[in-house]
């Protein structure tokens, strides 16, 4: 009688099918212990890894997990004497992980332009790169990434303060599929760069230029017009040159806008905010407008009554807003889950009116409200929804909502 070994009869795709039915990571690892062939199948099935390793180990990892799609090498934010990932490590990565689509290098403070050039030359399938807070990087290295990685969809450059308009030009020429771009804290970029960017990149859904204080109405007008159908998230925190013109252009062109951060845009006034509320009334879900000192009850009321899908709202330090903004909400149910109302004139009465309409509220922040205290709310008999956390004194964890 012939003896047939099941391992010889089963083909690779049958074994892969078996492997895919294992839910437990431990079981998958045990699968790899059976024999070299099963180890190869298990290793090449692995799509994602988070590691901290030097060049020798990286080469071994690249050899074993050759079909890796996602690699997370991000480091901690705290000051450390250990340099972490270096440019030569990036050369090993660019050489070894040819199928890589997602690379996370957040806080890898040791890397510089040389490493980026390796990435640009080696990883042509790269779609997502996060080099937030890799402070040494300049246009030189990052342009090499843009020129080499044509399919880039997501690029995070927060804190890369040497980035200039030149890089935005390179991205515009090379990465037309770009959807997500984070330039928070890239203070050298200007309206010219942003206009160049959206000339080539017309599918942007997520644009973060928080703290880029040179950006103004001209740049935002270009963005509104070029990415009108795609734009869903726009972050303009402390872009103090952004004013009414920007909001009017968003209202005119961007009907799919879901998240807008205009905190610190001090020149924005009621008229433009009202037009935005009217235009984006079904799409708008998150609005952060703290420190908008010119906003008053009239536009606040429009936002609340018209934007029915609004889930998160921050109007901290909007000094002119009073309880009157929350009157006349009628019988509408607001979908608000996160509400930050740190306004000096708002009182317990105003909070009460809001609570009547916000039955889904999960988080309420009144930490800097001089007239709203825990005692005051209890005395007024305010009823907070079941799962709602209320921040009176800042003792709770902060929510990272916007």
């Amino acid at each position, binding site marked *: 009688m012939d003896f047939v070994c099941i391992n010889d009869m089963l083909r690779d795709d049958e074994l892969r099918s078996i492997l895919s039915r294992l839910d437990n990571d431990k079981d998958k690892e045990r699968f790899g212990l059976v024999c070299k062939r099963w180890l190869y199948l298990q290793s090449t099935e692995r799509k994602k890894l988070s590691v901290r390793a030097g060049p020798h180990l990286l080469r071994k990892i690249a050899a074993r997990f050759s079909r890796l799609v996602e690699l997370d090498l991000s480091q901690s934010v705290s*000051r450390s004497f250990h340099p972490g990932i270096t440019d030569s490590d990036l050369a090993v990565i660019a050489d070894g992980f040819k199928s890589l689509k997602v690379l996370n290098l957040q806080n890898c403070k040791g890397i510089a332009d040389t490493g980026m050039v390796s990435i640009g030359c080696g990883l042509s399938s790269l779609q997502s790169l996060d080099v937030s807070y890799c402070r040494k990087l300049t246009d030189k290295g990052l342009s090499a990434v843009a020129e080499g990685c044509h399919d880039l969809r997501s690029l995070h450059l927060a804190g890369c303060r040497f980035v200039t308009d030149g890089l935005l030009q390179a991205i515009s020429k090379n990465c037309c599929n770009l959807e997500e771009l984070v330039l928070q804290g890239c203070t050298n970029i200007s309206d010219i760069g942003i206009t160049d960017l959206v000339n080539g990149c017309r599918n942007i859904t997520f644009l973060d230029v928080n703290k880029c*204080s040179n950006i103004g109405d001209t740049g935002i007008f270009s963005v509104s017009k070029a990415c009108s159908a795609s734009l869903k998230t726009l972050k303009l925190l*402390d872009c*103090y040159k952004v004013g009414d013109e920007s909001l009017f252009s968003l209202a005119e062109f961007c009907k799919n806008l879901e998240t807008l951060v205009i905190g*610190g845009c001090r020149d924005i006034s009621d008229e433009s905010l009202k037009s935005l509320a009217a235009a984006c009334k079904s799409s708008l879900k998150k609005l952060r407008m703290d*420190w908008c000192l010119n906003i008053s009850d009239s536009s606040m009321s429009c936002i609340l009554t018209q934007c029915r899908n609004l889930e998160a709202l921050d109007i901290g*330090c909007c000094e002119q807003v009073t309880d009157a903004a929350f009157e006349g909400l009628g019988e509408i149910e607001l979908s608000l889950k996160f509400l930050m109302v740190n306004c000096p004139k708002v009182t317990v009465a105003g909070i009460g009116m809001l609570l009547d309409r916000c039955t889904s509220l999960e988080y309420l922040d009144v*930490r*800097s409200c001089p007239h709203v205290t825990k005692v005051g709310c209890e005395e007024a008999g305010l009823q907070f929804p079941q799962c709602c956390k209320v921040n009176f004194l*800042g003792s709770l964890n902060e929510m990272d909502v916007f």
Partner: protein
Amino acid sequence: MGEIIGPRLYSCCNCRNHVALHDDVISKSFQGRNGRAFLFSHAMNIVVGPKEDRQLMTGLHTVADVYCSDCREVLGWKYERAYEETQKYKEGKFILEKSKIAQENW
């Protein structure tokens, strides 16, 4: 004759936990809650408290009180955000009150 090797440090006045390097001092002429204070680019072994909007002498700011990580003594605050353009240079930096820190290793 003992020779002190190592960077000049500041420590918590209460428990001598090391909290800042002298090399990181930006300015010595700030006003804290109880007198003179120093502006540092970095602080270590501290806990940053919750953020609050405060009207300071120099305008509207978001600040967070800063505590010694060992004994929880309030040592000063961190500037998270500044409203005035001229004050934005302080963002991300730390104020430690002179009365709350002691020189170490000098």
